[in-house]
């Protein structure tokens, strides 16, 4: 059995990749996918914690997170599609009307 702490390190790495992706990618869809990666990294950490403590709360929590992530996809895609239909672009750089 692998040391469960390795899973935590993997989760942290995935989370870091996701957050760097949100900050650097220009396409709203890709940025959103990176957010999903962050949520899944959290799931991995929760499940690893569940294994470390021999309790089930973390695994149940991961299910809740999956459902929440699915709900977030519904709302997020609706907003991104709305933006795309208006501007023919999903680049977050083009969404720059609101300033000062």
């Amino acid at each position: 059995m692998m040391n469960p702490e390795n899973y935590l390190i993997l989760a942290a790495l995935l989370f870091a990749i996701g957050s760097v992706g949100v900050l650097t990618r220009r396409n709203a869809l890709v940025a959103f996918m990176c957010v999903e990666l962050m949520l899944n990294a959290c799931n991995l950490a929760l499940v690893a914690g569940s294994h470390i403590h021999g309790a089930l709360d973390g695994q149940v929590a991961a299910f809740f997170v999956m459902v929440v992530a699915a709900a977030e996809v519904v709302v997020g895609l609706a907003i991104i599609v709305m933006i795309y239909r208006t501007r023919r672009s999903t680049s977050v750089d083009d969404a720059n009307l609101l300033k000062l």
Partner: protein
Amino acid sequence: MSSILMPVLEMAAPTLEWRALAPVLLVFAAACVGILLEAVLPRAYRFLGQMTLVFATALVSIGFLVINWRGQYGGRLAMGSIMLDGPTYFMWASLLVFGTLAFMVFSERQLNGGATTFAASAASVPGSLDEADATAARYEHTEVFPLGLFALGGMMVFLASSDLIVMFVALEVFSLPLYLLSGMARRRRLLSQEAALKYFLLGAFSSGFFLFGIAMLYVFSGSLDLAAIHTAIEGNAGSNGLVMIGLAFIAIGLLFKVGVVPFHSWTPDVYMGAPTPVTGFMAIATKLAAVGATMRVFYVALDGERWSWQPLFAVLAVLTMVVGIIGALTQSDIKRLLAYSSIAHAGFILVALVGATQTVAAGEGTSASAIMFYLAAYGFATIGAFALVTMVRNAAGEENNIDGWSGVAAKNPWVAGLMSLFMLSFAGIPLTGGFIGKWAVFTAAWRGGYGWLVIVAVLASLVAVYFYLRLIVVMFGRKEAKGVYVGNASAWTWIPVVVGAVATVWMGLVPDQVMQLATFAGGFLR
């Protein structure tokens, strides 16, 4: 085969305390019924049906809340996932009152030629034939009421949850409807859609951080329960990396919703782009719920680490006040001005939060009671101010440019006078609720041993007076702007304004009752 089907653990059927949870359950039930009404009712009756449902629910919920509070129902409810203590009662009551007032502004149709401030069809492309058809057919989105109720219910659970996963789910339940509502403005739809996109991407990003913080605290303590996390931290000698990461990431997620610098950048854009009634609702309800949840997490679960987070929050409080005030000084749009003002207010709230006074001494309240009073005073002024913003109009819709507000006093002295009252309350001038609120939060921070922070905050609030007074001078002192008129609003806008004004003056002149209520409700249960 049979071994796979064997139950891993005995699942007990959950028990719910129906009566104690009635205020929040009713709100969620009404939101679900509201969705059904959309499917069942003919278009002509939907608006009336939804409004009846919303306001009846709000009244019954408030009724249940008052009866339960008098009957002292409380404690850990719903299998230990909801904590019904004093702060929960006080903030549930505030949320229900502010939510009701905000939904009244949602219902305003007289200002806009018989249409709400929401797009006729949010799915249609701005400027397209679809949009023109939908407008000509006088379609309207009555879904805003169930969306608002879902947001309200989510906020109520958010600040009451004593379990981190419940808190995370509630965070999303109240955020997702708000993302949608932000994108539904009738006028300036491109701005509105952009606000929705920014709010959504940044909000989802911050909730990712919140969740990672939860996961780290879970890995450390083996529990998602706030009290159990507290016990685990108390039992652990020295500092632990997992706790530090968890603390920092949870703080990011919560402070983003409060609008604290450096997580504030969404605030001005979203406040400006969202339909004004929604902005009014977000400005107070989101802030109240997020501050409530921040207090609960940091006072109940992470109290043992207060030496780690207090200095951090003190620095953030100073930054927030400074950035909020400097930002507000340079704004030319009234909704952005109010957004930066709300950032500055988040800073003042954080001052009391840092003080973290939790013992009741000589009739004085805790930090929590000071913050709750502050939020109540700020909330009445905010609801009223944003309702007034919808009234000053030009040919294209609302006149949000501050120059356009020149000489509003000559056009309608009531609008200018009441707006000035709310500005004075924001500025913390004596005889308004804002002054008593500032007094309370500064006292709480002083008693908590953060005297230097109080001095910074007092200086900051002196500077802040300038931009509030500037709007008053513009309204009373300048020549009338051309092409701007004060709309003839119906009672749906005037009731929140008048209630806000009366409450602001009342809390300034005789604050005792609300203050006693807040003091009485000032202690978090673990």
